[in-house]
């Protein structure tokens, strides 16, 4: 199988995971360009992909670096663009906006995650929302497994406080 086909298969398998990672990590809903960039980078650096990481972990690592760059860029000259067609919904398609704002629980969780500090946000998204293993999370974040456990525990406590408890009980 040529590398183009491999990356396309990875995209089919993990595209939505990477997309969700960006939505929660960067705090924007139009992150398709970032998703595309992850897979283009993966294609470009395919030769450097080592078998000691799974494709999923490798893609998440690329995504995390891109997310950090994006947030830096945003804080330098923040230009938040939202298309005015908020009211123009496409029939039968559930947009991220729909999903994140229709449900009060989703909205509150989305807002609360953005209020977390970056390391807590990383670990909540990967461990909590995406249910990656401690080992996978440690590989992606380049942390020791113990640090993942401890940070995840603290991040959960902080997130619970921000959510106020009642929302998930």
């Amino acid at each position, binding site marked *: 199988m040529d590398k183009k086909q491999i990356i396309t298969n990875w*995209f089919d398998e993990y595209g*939505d995971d990477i997309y969700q990672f960006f939505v929660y990590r960067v705090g924007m809903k139009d992150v398709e360009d970032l998703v595309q960039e992850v897979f283009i980078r993966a294609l470009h650096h395919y030769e450097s992909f080592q078998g000691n990481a799974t494709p999923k972990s490798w893609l998440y690592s690329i995504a995390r670096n891109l997310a950090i760059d994006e947030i830096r860029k945003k804080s330098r000259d923040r230009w*938040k*663009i939202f*298309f*005015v067609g908020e*009211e123009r919904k496409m029939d039968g398609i559930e947009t991220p906006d729909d999903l994140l704002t229709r449900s009060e629980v*989703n909205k509150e969780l989305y807002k609360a995650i953005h209020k977390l500090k970056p390391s807590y946000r990383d670990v909540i998204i990967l461990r909590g929302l995406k249910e990656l293993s401690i080992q996978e999370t440690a590989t992606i974040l380049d942390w020791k497994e113990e640090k993942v456990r401890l940070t995840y525990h603290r991040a*959960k406590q902080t997130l619970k406080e921000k959510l106020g408890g009642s929302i998930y009980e």
Partner: protein
Amino acid sequence: MNKDFEKFLAKTRKPTMERSKKEEIRKSIQRYQSMEEEDKKDRYTNLKRVIAGFSGLAAVFLFAFLIIFDDENFPITTGSSLTPEGLQIEATIKPNRNEEMSHKDYMLEVIIKKDGNGGNMIYPVLEGLSNMSWAEREEGFFSPGSIGTNTLDEESIRDTLIESEVMGVDRIKDISQLMGFYIPEEAGEYRVRMYFEDTGFFNSGNQYLVYVHKEEKRFGHEERWTKLVEVNTEIPSTTAILEDAELHDGNVTLQLTFAEKIEDGSQPNGFYLEKDSVTSALSIIEEVPVYLINYSDWSEINYIKANWEEVIERTKEEGMIFLEIYEKDQKEVLFMKEIYLP
């Protein structure tokens, strides 16, 4: 408890990409390889381009020299530039009357008259109104393609608000939540109508709009100035004295004596009330927002959002309270606000 929280996080429904976007990304992965191959071919032709480019540059420099130093024959913009004096803005908040936008509570209508050209962003700074959006098509109204904000504009707005001393520091801090829109650069009259959700609007009179003018000048210099405009409100209201209130099954029944405000310069508020001779009952749902005067802070009249139990309690304590009842076309009560009568 921790396990429950983990389950809650894992089970939260997450957004997925639209199918069309996925297809686009798939295509760009396919295209990327051919781009890589094309890049190799391109390297050989690049040298030729560089040589041609240098010759072109010489011509461009000559032309640029003429443009920069011959302002008469090569003005940077066509038409006259807009000045603060040449800009007139009238902005009014009204109850939303557009059925297609029934999930929005209020609309802001803005009429902008420009006698000169220039880029712009216009930021409503509205207390208690959020989630600005536009209707799909509205005849006679301009609809911008996108809305947004940037750090530089936010700084300009912050400076404008501080210099004008129109609002407290706490509210100025919130302006990072601002969202702006634009109108065309060309001189002319533009009407814009946008819709908002009520997140605590109580007609405080503390509503503004900031027009940020931006114009590119020579050597990349950007001329910018701002104009602050006070936003009017056009929400019909009636004045009443609340004599008693009762809460039952999610409804509130108010015993009201309606009153008319009669202008009188000798009164502290500039008016006095002429009461009806009868008391009427008005039933509303408990969700109708009500705002009471915060008597713990007398530095200026400020309001706190209250629940109906608190209103009932204050009415019983005081014997009565004065209310301004804001309505949508005399059919639906939008909110109520206590008024102060010395």
